[in-house]
């Protein structure tokens, strides 16, 4: 036996780690008298229990043993616990293998017909008849009676939750690791759907024409790039914008002076001019301005540069058309994807075996192909969508789950009970999202526990015993709510016993 000694400051964890670390199975524990760990009386009991779970036995030094009151007697001397719990059983001691009625059964009953003498005599015949009657009666008494013993039991329901894992990498259940295999299933559906377009757009043509740009500046020419803006000045089309179709440079203006007969000088400025073609910025009739309309050019002051058209502009027009809106395509996608998703999920279920269940939380859906026949803003009264939709999910087998859950609850079944295999139901859901091969599960098992009663043993106990002994025995059985004994035929006591032949005793369990 190894001795482990600990000082004042030792913690419970340290003592437990030490017990775990040493190879010896039997240990003596000594702790300093005023150690902190001794202040909680529960700690010594925890050490005992934890050591026991490690398959080890610990003994405490004297000062610790008194804390646990280890030397106190656990039961009153002289009291027979077995008798006090089951007085009926005391009358049928289980340790005894002797059952005189069984001995008789083992010997069997043998009888044969006596040899008849050739010369019948009356007393012999009567005796023979009596023997026959007696033998027949005995045989009938032994083999004919039958009994039905109904034991009323109340099953206990239970529910247990457990954390497990599931993986597509497993092919068989791993009860040690509490893991079940997962199978990946998928289903793809393709479909087409059309819808009316609801978008509106205004389309048309830009008005066109030619203007003469006039430069009044006598010092520098003026240049304008392609696209430079001109604006109508005055009139009903005031502000309407146009842009130059080409870049242009307008030469400087020239000045001349003339003198009349009286000697008066008149100055005349002749602007530099260039004719250039323009287009309206906006579509529509508003660009079709009249002849002799004046325009400002770029940011130039009208006194320096202006423009005028000799002929009216033409060609400007507009109209509203129906086009494909982005909401049209979005609605189509929503509707068609919903239809295909329902179909694909339905097909997915048909791919599962009877025992397989899809694991909620692992279903992933997506469009693998999405094709529209019209772009957004395209002129069209209708748009259509061709869509391929895929649903992928992971499934587990209920049988596999039952195997793992059964292992986890087996150690928790109270003594005297067993699981009713027909009433076991399991379910699982993914406890968190996982895109990988392994998924954490939260699993639940619901079931019923039935009292464990060995029918063959009960039959053996009841064979050939009196009704009152049978009552005493049946009352002593644990985990039954009641019983009923139906005997046939009903014979006068002391012949009214349960059948001697085991096969004639039927034990039936009825749930209450």
């Amino acid at each position, binding site marked *: 036996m190894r001795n482990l000694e600990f000082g004042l400051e030792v*913690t*419970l*964890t340290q003592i*437990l780690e030490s017990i*775990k670390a040493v190879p010896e199975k039997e240990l003596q524990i000594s702790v300093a008298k005023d150690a902190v*760990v001794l*202040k*909680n009386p*529960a*700690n010594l*009991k*925890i050490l005992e*229990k*934890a050591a026991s*779970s490690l398959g080890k036995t610990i003994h405490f030094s004297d000062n610790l043993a008194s804390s646990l009151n280890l030397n106190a007697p656990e039961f009153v001397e002289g009291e027979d616990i077995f008798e006090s719990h089951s007085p009926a059983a005391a009358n049928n001691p289980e340790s005894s293998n002797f059952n005189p009625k069984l001995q008789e059964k083992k010997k069997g009953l043998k009888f044969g017909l006596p040899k008849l003498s050739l010369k019948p005599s009356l007393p012999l015949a009567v005796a023979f008849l009596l023997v026959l009657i007696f033998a027949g009666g005995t045989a009938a008494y032994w083999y004919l009676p039958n009994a039905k013993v109904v034991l009323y039991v109340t099953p*206990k*329901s*239970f*529910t*247990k*939750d*457990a*954390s497990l894992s599931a993986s597509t990498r497993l092919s068989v259940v791993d009860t040690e690791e509490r893991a079940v295999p997962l199978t990946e299933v998928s289903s793809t559906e393709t479909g087409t759907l059309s819808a009316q377009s609801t978008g509106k757009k205004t389309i048309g043509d830009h008005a066109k024409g030619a203007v003469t740009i006039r430069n009044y500046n006598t010092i520098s020419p003026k240049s304008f790039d392609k696209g430079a803006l001109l604006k109508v000045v005055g009139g009903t089309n005031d502000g309407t914008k146009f842009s130059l179709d080409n870049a242009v440079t307008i030469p400087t203006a020239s000045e001349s002076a003339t003198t009349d007969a009286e000697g008066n000088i008149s100055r005349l400025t002749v602007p530099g001019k260039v004719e250039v073609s323009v287009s309206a910025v906006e579509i529509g009739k508003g660009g079709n301005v009249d002849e002799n309309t004046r325009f400002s050019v770029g940011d130039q002051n009208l006194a320096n540069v202006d423009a005028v058209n000799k002929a009216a502009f033409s060609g400007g027009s507009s109209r509203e058309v129906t086009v494909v809106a982005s909401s049209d395509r979005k609605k189509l996608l929503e509707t068609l994807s919903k239809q295909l998703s329902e179909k694909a999920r339905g097909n997915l279920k048909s791919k599962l075996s009877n025992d397989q269940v899809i694991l909620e939380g692992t279903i992933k859906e997506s469009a693998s192909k999405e094709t529209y026949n019209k772009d957004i803003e395209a002129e069209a009264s209708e748009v259509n969508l061709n869509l391929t939709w895929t649903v992928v999910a992971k499934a587990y087998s209920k049988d596999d789950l039952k195997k793992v859950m059964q292992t*986890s609850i087996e*150690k*928790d*079944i*109270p*003594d005297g009970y067993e699981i009713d295999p027909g009433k076991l139901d399991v379910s699982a859901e993914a406890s968190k999202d996982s895109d990988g091969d392994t998924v954490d599960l939260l699993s639940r098992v619901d079931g019923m526990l039935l009292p464990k009663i060995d029918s063959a043993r009960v039959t053996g106990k009841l064979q050939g015993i009196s009704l009152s002994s049978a009552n005493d025995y049946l009352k002593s059985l644990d985990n039954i709510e009641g019983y009923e004994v139906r005997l046939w035929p009903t014979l006068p006591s002391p012949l009214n016993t349960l059948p001697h032949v085991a096969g004639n005793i039927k034990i039936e369990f009825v749930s209450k």
Partner: protein
Amino acid sequence: MSLLNIFSSNKEKLDKFLVLEIGLEKVTAAVFDHSQPNTTPQTSEENVSIKTPKLLGIGRKNIPAVMDLPSVTEEAIEAVSATVKELPQTTVLGVSAEELETSTTIVRYQRADASSKIDSNEIEQIIEHSGKEKSPTDKKLFFATVTSTLIDGTLVSNPIGLTGQSLEVSCFNAFKPEQELAFYSKVLNDLDLKLLKIIPTSYAVARSLIKNGIKDAILICVGLEHTEVIFVSNAHVVGIKSFDLGSKTLDFWSSGLEVVLEEFKEHQPWPDAVKIYGESEGQEKIKSELLTFPWMKKFELDHFPKIEVMHYQGEGLENDLGVAALSLEV
């Protein structure tokens, strides 16, 4: 310190007060104010609403060793002083369940004068008597409370001012070593704090949850290296036990739980819910341990209890269910 301040009808409500929780792994100091609007936090699992007074500030400090307790307490108070200008002196002190012994006793007697009104002196005498009767030899009574009162067979919430012949008073008593109580007294004196009440923090938690409708449960407060277990049955605290294993020592933790729960084995009926709370992040691990614990076999239960983690979130109070519960003791 007066043990009885329970049934006074005109209890003076303080505005600001300090809650000091001395746990086994940390000290928390928090200042509350009754005069400001209450907060209503929720626990995520339970929908239990614990409405605390307004929290003005909080300071926390981990305890490296027991002998450092005065300086750790001082540091926790300094931390809260950084956010609260005026630190109140009136203090509610919550203590851990280490070396704590509890008892629930019922005192039954026939009153000499049935027509005379029951007053606080009479109740105080009953509590002191029950405390002395059940007092362990090496520990001192520091907290006692009446959990229920029957007058002539009728359950009353407050017996003060009522009359009756036969009185049955259930008392919950808590005892700690005298040395430890003197230690706390010195710590508070050195910090110039005035002690209003000293109470086991676990009891305050249980009481606040009982007020919110939890009548039967095993409450488990999980720390890194310590666990406290409170057994609540029929809206009463039956007992508080602790053991020196926590979420850091999962290997043997269930042995510790089994030992303390065996103390309640004879109590019937057993609660059908287990609720976990505490400071450490190991609460989910403890929940997994409890889900595999053989409840039915060990304690002859008919079914597995429901295991839940209570996450307490209040304004500034994260997983501080103990502090929140202590704030309701004023």
